[in-house]
């Protein structure tokens, strides 16, 4: 087990720069998730750590050891692939011990290691089968077993759950999390699924276009996204964005936007950052998550309440069971509010909503950065 540091790592393919100065550092035992849309460079970054590709610039360190020019097999890392990449001609047992065999581990030790791993992953009864005789979930376990048996410093996971069906994916997610707790291993995990990122990570690195957008704990990324991309990418349904203007209203800073010919004014909390003052009179993007936008709450009529009420017409409702996603038209945009099912109304009706002004984000419309 070891820490991992990426220091100004760059990668170019010809003239195309796929990774631009990535700086990341995680401690021993952390669970880092690299998340982003397709083509954001997350898999390339993982391959750089694995040694399957070489970086164009910068330094990669495991512990204190610079591994840029170390052969993958000497980096002491193990990788679980999206396609599982099991060796089709070998039994599960051979698959798991192949790496040990090449490293010249004695056969009695190998047998013991396989038995330990098989017990941990509950695949003891599969050891003599071929990969073609296994289900997707079982292959996934074997692929993890193959990584575990090597007892590496760092585990790399390349979208390991994306070939599984939805139910199994959730189960395996929990399993991976448990495994991480039990082993205390350092893990780098690549996914495009933000829920996987949120649930698994101790720290998330959100990437887009080869640039690291934000690197922080899941909760902080969720609550304080650096920019509109991160805000929109993390969270489901994603954050609502409304083009608005910042004004001063009775001594309080407020967001205002036009809705159906009327001005909606949503005063901000008194404890909002000082930096907002310089944006008074300017256009901003007002970001609010669906769960901060809900049916009218008790006590929301108090003048100093964190909840601000407004009326809007319901366009569409999407019941999910726990909550009813209510789509309304606000400031010319479709906005999703998360409403308790017993408080939801029918499409076409007017309804009073209340916005939690403690959970808002403001963005610069030009740079898309957080204010």
């Amino acid at each position: 087990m070891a820490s991992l540091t990426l220091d100004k790592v760059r990668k170019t393919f010809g003239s195309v720069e796929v990774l631009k100065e990535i700086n990341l550092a995680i401690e021993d035992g952390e669970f880092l998730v690299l998340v982003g849309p397709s083509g954001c460079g997350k898999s390339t970054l993982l391959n750089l750590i694995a040694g399957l590709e070489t970086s164009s610039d910068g330094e990669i360190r495991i512990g204190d050891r610079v591994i840029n020019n170390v052969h993958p097999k000497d980096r002491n890392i193990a990788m679980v692939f999206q396609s599982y990449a099991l060796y089709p001609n070998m039994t599960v047992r051979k698959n798991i011990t192949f790496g040990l065999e090449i490293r010249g581990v004695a056969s009695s030790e190998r047998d013991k290691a396989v038995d330990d791993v098989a017990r941990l992953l509950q695949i003891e009864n599969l050891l003599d089968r071929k990969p073609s005789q296994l289900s997707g979930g079982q292959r996934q376990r074997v692929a993890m077993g193959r990584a575990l048996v090597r007892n590496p410093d760092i585990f790399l996971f390349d979208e390991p759950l994306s070939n599984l069906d939805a139910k199994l994916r959730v189960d395996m997610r929990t399993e991976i999390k448990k495994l991480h707790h039990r082993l205390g291993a350092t893990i780098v995990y690549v996914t495009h699924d933000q829920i996987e990122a949120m649930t698994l990570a101790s720290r998330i690195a959100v990437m887009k276009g080869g640039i690291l957008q934000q690197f922080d704990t899941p909760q902080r990324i969720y609550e304080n996204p650096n920019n509109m991309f991160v805000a929109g990418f993390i969270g489901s349904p994603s954050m609502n964005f409304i083009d608005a203007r910042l004004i001063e209203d009775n001594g309080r800073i407020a967001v205002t936007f036009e809705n159906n010919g009327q001005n909606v004014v949503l005063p901000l909390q008194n404890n909002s950052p000082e930096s907002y003052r310089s944006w008074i009179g300017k256009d901003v993007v007002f970001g609010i998550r669906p769960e901060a936008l809900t049916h009218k709450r008790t006590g929301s009529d108090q003048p100093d309440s964190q909840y601000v009420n407004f009326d809007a017409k319901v366009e569409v409702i999407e019941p999910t069971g726990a909550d009813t996603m209510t789509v309304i038209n606000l400031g010319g945009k479709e906005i999703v509010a998360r409403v308790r099912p017993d408080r939801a109304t029918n499409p076409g009706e007017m309804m009073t909503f209340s916005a939690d002004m403690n959970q808002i984000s403001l963005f610069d419309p030009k740079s898309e950065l957080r204010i």
Partner: protein
Amino acid sequence: MGASSSTESNLMAGLQRNLSKIVVAPSFAASLFFVYGFILWTAWMAFSKSRMMPVYDWAGLRQYERLWQMERWHVAIENLLIFGGLFIVICLFLGCLLAVLLDQRIRAEGVLRTIFLYPMALSFIVTGTVWKWILNPGLGLEKMMHDLGWASFKFDWLVNSDFAIYTVVIAAVWQASGFVMAMFLAALRGVDQDIIRAAYMDGASLPRIYFGIIIPSIRPVFLSAIVVLAHLAVKSFDLVIALTGGGPGYSSDLPATFMYTMAFQRNQLGISAASAMMMLATVMAIIVPYLYSELRGGKKNG
């Protein structure tokens, strides 16, 4: 009037319905007659007293007895074993090696692949003729070496009755190994690249990855390649005719050239038919189990 138009439309509908059968019927009938009909006719010939002209008197297994008493038939069979064995083994080895080397995502792969595959586009006659020139001691390789000053160089397999069959192997391998390469390359491309990466991270060397994992996992392609090569070997005729003409003497005869000689030059139609049936039996022995396993496998998957 109305009745006649309805019969007409019935006829048209029937035609429409059976159009595919009607179109296929002539070629079906032709192949039924010319392929399977003549197989039966040949089988009959092999049991007759035919010599120069076909006669239909029953002679039992007499033609087969005569066939197996002929020294020349034994040479042809022995040559088939040498030729077939070496041809298949060398083609598999070279084809596999070329495919693995081409699989390394090298530059100009398309050009190289075409170069290796082109010999397959030639007819065996052309291949045989070209190699006859190259291997001719007074014309080709040996003469070139002599002209370059290597006077002791000797490469006379083509005219040496102990080695003539090996020149057939050389030419046939040259022609077919590119095709085997293409088969293997297609199979290698079907192998998940992540498997190679996983093995690489496990610390396996490239030869170990290929011989320990990749090649064993494309075993079905070996079977297909062997079947294709084996039937090429058994029915080899034009290559031998063009390259050695079965000579010197009959030292490089194969069953196919033997059959041709017996039928059209030696007036031994019965022996020729018997040898043809022996070849058919050989090919069937290879193809039938293969087809059986393929069809059964297909059912299992479907």
